[in-house]
Every structure is written in structure tokens, then in C-alpha cells.
């Protein structure tokens, strides 16, 4: 049957022209196309890789920043704490010194007051003594102004004296 009988002529032309087709397409189509596809796939892959790398670098940078930030914060806290401590210390010291000074002043003042007081008392005592003597003198002077009075006194005194 003709349908299933391969024709020599057709095989001949097919072999030649298919050979030419394979040759032409290999040289002018498949090689450049395959190369272009591969290049593009490569470039896409590279781009993806570099994007990934950039992303990881960014992440690293971010982590670094975070770390720096944390460090800075810690440092700040530390500095603040130190400052606070120093402040407290200074205040305490100042307070201590002030108290001491006050105490000292008060003590001096007290001593001085005491001394003054003592001086005043002594003076007062002397004055009182002088006054008393003066008063007594005056009284005595008054009581013994007359001879009778002097005699009465002597009598009085002599009354008390017991002659043993």
C-alpha cells in the first residue's frame, strides 16, 4: 500500500533538508538562544543572590545598629547613674560638712554664751555684794545713828552674852 511505503526521494530530501535545518538552527538559533537563556537565568540568579546578600548585610547592619544603640543606652544609663551617685555623694559630703560646721559654730556660740553668762553672773554677784554691803552699811549707819541706839545695841548684845 502506497501510504505505508516510504518514498526514497522524500527520505533523500528530508535527510538533506532536515540536516540543513538542524545545522542552521543550531548555529543561528539554538546556540544563541540557549546561551541567552542561560545568561539571563544566571543573571537573575546572581541578582537574587546579591539581593539576598544585601538583605543579609542590611540585617547585619541593623543588628549592629541595635547593638550599638543598646550599648549607647547602657553607657548613658551608667553615666547617669554615676552622675547621680556623684551628686548624692557631693550632697552628702556637703551636708556632713555643713552639719559639722554648724555644730562647731553652735558649740563655740554656746561656749561664748556660757562664758558671757558666767561673767555676767560674777559681775552681778559682785554688784549684789557691793549693793548688800552698801545697804547694810546704810542700815547700820541708820540704826546706830544715835547714842541711845548704840547703847541699846550694846545692851542687847550683852544680854546674849552669858557670863560663865
Amino acid at each position, binding site marked *: 500500500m502506497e*501510504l505505508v511505503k516510504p518514498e526514497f*526521494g522524500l*527520505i533523500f530530501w528530508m535527510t538533506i533538508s532536515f540536516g540543513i*535545518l538542524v545545522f*542552521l*538552527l*543550531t548555529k543561528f538559533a539554538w546556540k*544563541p*538562544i540557549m546561551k541567552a537563556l542561560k545568561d539571563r537565568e544566571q543573571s537573575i540568579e546572581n541578582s537574587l543572590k546579591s539581593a539576598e546578600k544585601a538583605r543579609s548585610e542590611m540585617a547585619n547592619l541593623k543588628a549592629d545598629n541595635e547593638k550599638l544603640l543598646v550599648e549607647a543606652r547602657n553607657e548613658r544609663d551608667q553615666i547617669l547613674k554615676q552622675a547621680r551617685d556623684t551628686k548624692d555623694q557631693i550632697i552628702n559630703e556637703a551636708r556632713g560638712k555643713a552639719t559639722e560646721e554648724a555644730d562647731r559654730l553652735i558649740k563655740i556660740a554656746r561656749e561664748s554664751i556660757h562664758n558671757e553668762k558666767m561673767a555676767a553672773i560674777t559681775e552681778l554677784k559682785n554688784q549684789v555684794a557691793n549693793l548688800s554691803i552698801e545697804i547694810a552699811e546704810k542700815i547700820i549707819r541708820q540704826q546706830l545713828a544715835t547714842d541711845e541706839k548704840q547703847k541699846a545695841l550694846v545692851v542687847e548684845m550683852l544680854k546674849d552674852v552669858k557670863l560663865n
Partner: protein
Amino acid sequence: MALITNRLLVFFGLIVLLLNPVKVQAAVDKGEMMEFEAGKNIMAHVVDAHDWHLWGHSSIPLPVIIYSKARGLDVFLSSAFHHGEMTWKGYMLNKDKKVVAVKEMESVPAEQATLHEKLTPHLWDLSITKNVTSLIISIILLCLIFISVANTYKRNPNRPPRGLQSFLEPIIIFVRDDVIKTGIGPKYEKYVPYLMTLFFFIWFNNMLGIIPFFPGGANLTGNIAIAMTMAVLTLIITSLSGNKHYWQHIFAMPGVPKWVLIILTPIELMGVILRPFVLMIRLFANIVAGHIIILSFFSLIFIFSENGANPGAGFGVGVVSLIFTVFMTSLEVLVAALQAYIFVFLSAIYIGSAVEEAHDHGVSHESI
């Protein structure tokens, strides 16, 4: 892809719609009352021819190239045969439209000529037949398409594809990755040009074959000589690529008792021949069957209209056969791609089996 298929479907549907009434009308106009021979007509459409029939009595004459030792080389146009009615330079067309030698060297009517029985089997018919013309047209078109696409790649490296490139690129990548790489394995790169050409050649020609008019309509991939050439090429490439492991599995299957080899080796050898044979038959039969079915639906119109005597029945059946033809044509569009895929995928698997490195046993290595 779905969109493209839909568009092709509509496109072919329109072609069928346009063509069908014309054909019926032509038969009615001529009022030919001859018996309509569907089988003969269908066969005439699916086999090769020495001229390219366009419509009615119009056809493109094609060069006839005949060589024989006795008469040397003869080249002339097939129109010299007057559709087989005349002889020319001692040749004529027989009833199968094949060139045969006749004793009369001058031009005489075919029925008066006497067949040169001795010379005829020794004729080498290298004519540019309808299929050869279609082959050349398809090759030119394929070259134009793919070289222009390749140039687009060269012009716009590392850019998204555009135009024809964006249509073909997914297919090229599919064939490369899912057909060739899957079939052959890691050593696929060497075979990409052949298999890629094979895929697009088969697919393109399958599609050209579906188009019912010039420059389509030649049943190229449904021709056994074409399918055979491609299958033999795959066989040759497979055999030339075959490594030690491959041949060892054919001639001396390891791990099998010696006496079994007496049975096994011929079976394996048969398999080597059978694989390309099946490739050839599958492509040829699928394509030719599609053509025959579509032509049969058309023939139904002429059978029912009694070749123009009963136009009413012809139109009635025409509507039904049209619907079936549209359906079949869209199926053929699918088959066109499918058969190209199968042919190339199996070729890749055969080549893959030949270049495959030795591996652990227990893995199946046979597939037809």
C-alpha cells in the same frame, strides 16, 4: 496557552466554515455525475503528489527529477504530464500518481503508452514533490522564525522577552527543561539542538498540515518517509551516543545467567530497532488518522449529496460534518503539539538510556 488554543480553534473553525460550502458548491456547479470514491479521494489527499492542488483544476506544477543509469538525469515540470494524461521524455504517472518509465520517448497519451517494466524499478525519483515543497517552505519559515527570535535575544540580552520571543520562550524552556533535561539527564546539553529542532519541526509541520490550503495542507509529518527519517536519526544518535553501560545491557545484561542471554540479547536488539519503529508509526499513524477523519467528514457531504445530485442532503449533512470537523480540527491542534512532544520526549528518553551512567540495579531501564 488556553487563549492561544481558543484563538486557533476559532481560526480553524472559520477556515472550515469558509471552505466547506465552496467545495459543495463547486461539485454542484460542475454537475459531475460520476460516482464519488471517498477512499480514493481521501488517499489522494494524504499521500504525496507531483503537483500542489490549489482548487478545482488549478494546481502548482512541481519539478520532476528522475535519475536512472540507463537514461541519466531528467528534470522537467510535472505539468508536462497533464495530470497523468500524457507521457513525457519516456515517463508517465501511473494510477497511484507515481512516475514510471514508458517505452515511448516522445509525448503520447498515457493510455497508449507501454510500461517499461525493466527500467521502472531502477528509477530514482528525486522529484520536488508536494511534500518536499512543504518541507522546504516549513524549513524556510522555521529558520526565519527562530533566527529572528535568536536575534531578538542577541539584541536584548537579559531583558524580558517580547513579541514572538515571548510566545516561543516558554515553549523552548518547556522543551529544554521538561522534555530534554527530564528525558536525557545531566548530559542533555549536547542533544538540545537536535531535539529542539525535531520538536519545532514536527509541531510546525503538524500545524501546517492542518491548514487546508497552500502553503499548508501537505501531509508531511503524516508521511511515513518523513517519520522514518526522523526516527532513524534518533536511532543513529542513540547508537552513536551509547556508552559501555548501554551496549552491555543490550548484548550481555549483567546479573543474568548466560543461557538466558540467548533469549534476552535478541529481544534487547529487537528493542533497539523497535523503539524508533514505534516512534515512526506513532507519529505517522496519529497524523494521518487525523487527516483521514477530517477528510471523511467532508466526504460524507459528497456521499450524501450523491456528488451534487442531491444538494439538500449535502447541505444537511454538511452542517453536521462541519461541527464534527471543527471538533476534529481542534483536536488535531492538540494532537499536533502532543505528537511533537511525545516524539521528542521518547527520543530524549532513548538517548538518555544510551548516555546514562551505570547505576544500582533494580531500577527499571526499559521503556518503549
